[in-house]
């Protein structure tokens, strides 16, 4: 079964590019342009991986990461934060499993995704 990846990114073009790369990896991407839309989707079905942008129109990506990791129902899902400003992330408590600095190299992005999905599969099997 294809792994589902939820992307929370308000810029539609970046969302499209990330979605395209995930499709190329054989994953099933779902793009939300706001936290509200993402939460609605989470209520319907949980994904295998979540990618969150730091700047969102209705909130902060770091806080969303922390909420997801503090909630026992979602804590096991790998969360990757995309940020252009890693200093800002370093100054704040951030529970994301990994932070990808934007702009990213495609190969680095893909290996990051595959690594976390492999870990998630290992955790699920265990």
């Amino acid at each position: 079964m294809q792994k589902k990846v939820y992307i929370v990114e308000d810029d539609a073009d970046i969302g499209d590019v990330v979605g395209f790369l995930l499709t190329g990896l054989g994953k099933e991407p779902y793009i939300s342009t706001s936290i509200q839309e993402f939460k609605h989707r989470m209520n319907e079905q949980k994904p295998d991986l979540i990618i969150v942008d730091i700047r969102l129109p209705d909130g902060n990506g770091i806080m969303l990461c922390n909420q997801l990791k503090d909630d026992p129902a979602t804590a096991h899902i790998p969360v990757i934060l995309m940020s252009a400003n890693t200093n800002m992330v370093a100054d704040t408590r951030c529970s994301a499993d990994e932070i990808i600095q934007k702009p990213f190299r495609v190969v680095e992005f893909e290996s990051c995704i595959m690594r976390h999905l492999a870990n998630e599969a290992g955790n699920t099997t265990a």
Partner: protein
Amino acid sequence: MNNRNIIVVGASAGGFDALKRLVNDLPANLRAAVFIVWHLPEDAEGILPDVLNRIGKLPCKTAVDLEPIQLGRIYVAPPDRHLLIEDGRVRVTRGPKENRFRPAIDPLFRSAAYAYGTLVIGVILSGALDDGTAGLWVIGQRGGIAIVQDPAEASIAAMPQSAKRSALAQNILSIKEIGPRLVALTREDVVNHQKKDSPVHINTDRSKRNSLIGEFTPFTCPECHDDLSIINEGTNRFNCPSGHTFSADSLLMAINENIEANLWNTLRNLHESIFLMNQMGDHFAELNERTIAANYFKQAKEAHRHTELLNRLITENERIPYNTMHAPIVE
């Protein structure tokens, strides 16, 4: 005789799907060089060549200043740099922003038209506002071919709509038709007539100030506050001596952003004055100077009323959808 061998492509918001399809449709033996400007947030730029290399048959790379132009390659504008074409070589410069973008589509198109005249094909894809319209007009004026993605199918219609309206676009095509049309056009022989009487400057050097071309306007440059003059290139184009260039829509958007910034600034100043006047009122009340105290409180109350007016103005200003100014008015 030559074949048309310079293809310049401009895309903005919603342009990724169109770029994917276009690049996918270009054959490995294309007898042309392709140059792409895609507006993206600065933190996302630079990934397009990697992505397009996954899709197309032509090698794609970020353009490097002064490299020779090679046919059968795709050159992408790097982040925060204009991509320009000179005779036989690529230029990548940090010239003044055009239409508030760097890279911008207009300078690429204009430089290609002046360097290669009838050998140029310009393509405008999905996007907001109107970058590319003036550049496509210059391509048409100098005998090149102007192609516009059908606005009816573009993810964001404003940019192709503007180009279609103003830029001598001979070809309004769906995205699936554009690739095959480009291939056919590159196989035709053309005579490269180049006019030398260009009235239009291409500013690639920030240290140089242009003399104003066109007529003076009452407007000032939103970037550097110098005078703006106006010329017509199929559509009105505003220029300052430093080289900042605006279409009418991008100038309007910049002016309105300045208005909003100034309104917020004024609101903050009003809140400060209310706070201070209330403190002064308390101070004079403690001194039993009741008339003076009452005057301060009265002024503070009046200023508070002004903040309500300003809040309403800011809210109304935020509601104006400048990107859809050309859409039909819905009552």
